């Protein structure tokens, strides 16, 4: 058993690295997309607002699995030839952007409008107001939900194994196939995922508590 583990460990580590890279990478890219989406959603232009609403509705309504399949099979047809990893990363980013846009929307709406007026009177332009006043506070207000979304992304990342990315799940599948010990292998994979999600989950609890005390203070 121990020799099995020592052989398999590097493979697991490699898979875990890929999983962490794809989860966090898609969250980071998705975050910026989410801010843009949110701005569009809350803008006075009905065109922009509708486009954002449709986007969010699509990416939240269709399973990520189907989105990944569409990226994997259909993008080459329209001439976009990228590696499975790149298409998976951007698909995941596009998906989490929709969820985070919904989360951030509540945050943006929770900022007292007077602060934006004060910024306008102080001469800040639209972009500065977004960057200095709105985004920091929207994030602060919605941090627990945003962190929860990171956890969701870590779990969802297991799907990229289906479209050919060597993540932790694919690594586990490979090891299971070569060692014929699926139980221990998948248990190990499960424990590794759990370790990652639990640590992030602990951060969420901390964020939730500090948000509560901030409110009362």
């Amino acid at each position, binding site marked *: 058993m121990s020799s099995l583990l020592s052989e398999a460990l590097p493979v697991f580590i490699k898979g875990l690295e890929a999983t962490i890279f794809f989860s966090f990478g898609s969250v980071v890219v998705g975050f910026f997309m989410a801010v843009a989406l949110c701005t569009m959603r809350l803008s006075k232009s009905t065109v922009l607002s509708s486009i954002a609403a449709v986007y969010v509705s699509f990416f939240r309504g269709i399973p990520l699995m189907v989105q990944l399949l569409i990226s994997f099979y259909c993008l080459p047809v329209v001439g976009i030839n990228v590696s499975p990893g790149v298409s998976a990363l951007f698909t995941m980013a596009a998906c989490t952007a929709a969820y985070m846009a919904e989360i951030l929307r509540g945050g943006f709406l929770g900022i007292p409008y007077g602060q934006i007026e004060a*910024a306008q009177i102080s*001469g*800040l332009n639209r972009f500065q107001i977004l960057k200095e006043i709105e985004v920091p*506070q929207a994030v602060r207000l919605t941090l627990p939900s945003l962190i929860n979304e990171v956890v969701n992304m870590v779990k969802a990342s297991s799907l990229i194994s289906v479209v050919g990315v060597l993540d932790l799940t694919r690594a586990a599948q490979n090891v299971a196939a070569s060692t014929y010990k699926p139980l221990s292998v998948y248990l190990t994979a499960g424990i590794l995922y759990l370790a990652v999600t639990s640590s992030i989950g602990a951060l969420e609890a901390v964020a939730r508590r500090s948000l509560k005390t901030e409110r009362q203070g």
Partner: protein
Amino acid sequence: MTENPIIEVEGLTKTFGSTEVLKGVSLALERSQVTCIIGPSGSGKSTLLRCLAFLETYDTGRVEIEGRLLGYVEKDGRRRPATSREISDVRRNVGFVFQHFNLWPHMTVMDNVAKPLWLASGFSRKEARERALAALEKVGLADKLEDYPAQLSGGQQQRVGIARTLAKGPHIILFDEPTSALDPEIVGEVLQVMRDLAEEGMTMAVVTHEMGFAAQVADRIAFIDEGVIAVQGAPRDVLLSKDNPRLVRFLKNFFDRNVFWEN
């Protein structure tokens, strides 16, 4: 009244939905003068002040800041809404103090005052910090630089609000009921700062219920009622006037409570 006024208002109207809040207001705010705007709730006084800063749009009329039209651009007799950059440009020298302070809670006191200076007013970070420090010293809060708004009392927060607007070096400061949201015992500290500013010659327009302040510090008082300026003039003339029955009834409240002690 021979100098050009800093803010000149002519025939201002403003409608919210189906209610006409301002029905043709004309006013001139002269350099170094303190103008207090008083009136019953719903009279339109806050709306008027916010229109002066174009925090609210106005429907017809003109608001001119140092001779430049605010909020709209006129060309060949036609008027179009100004872009936000044009608006910022025209109201660059106008300061505003809000009833609910509107400090940014995620920034320290120093950042609240200094950041807009290097973000928007074009100062270097060093200059911004120096100006911020000077403004905060002026309002008596130089020892609270690294505190956050939540750690300050209401009066302190409002003073930071005043420092924030002072730091950008405005030619006129508009105060929208600056003490209405404060506990009575703290009102004094903010009024004192405002008095000091007035004494140094700052041009101010103050919407307020503080009749004592209006009586003692204002150079002119304007009484707004139902969307128009019903009475305006020197404090004594306005406050002791018996001509306008609505004004008399409005002031009765304050006379009864003996608000004026040095009239």
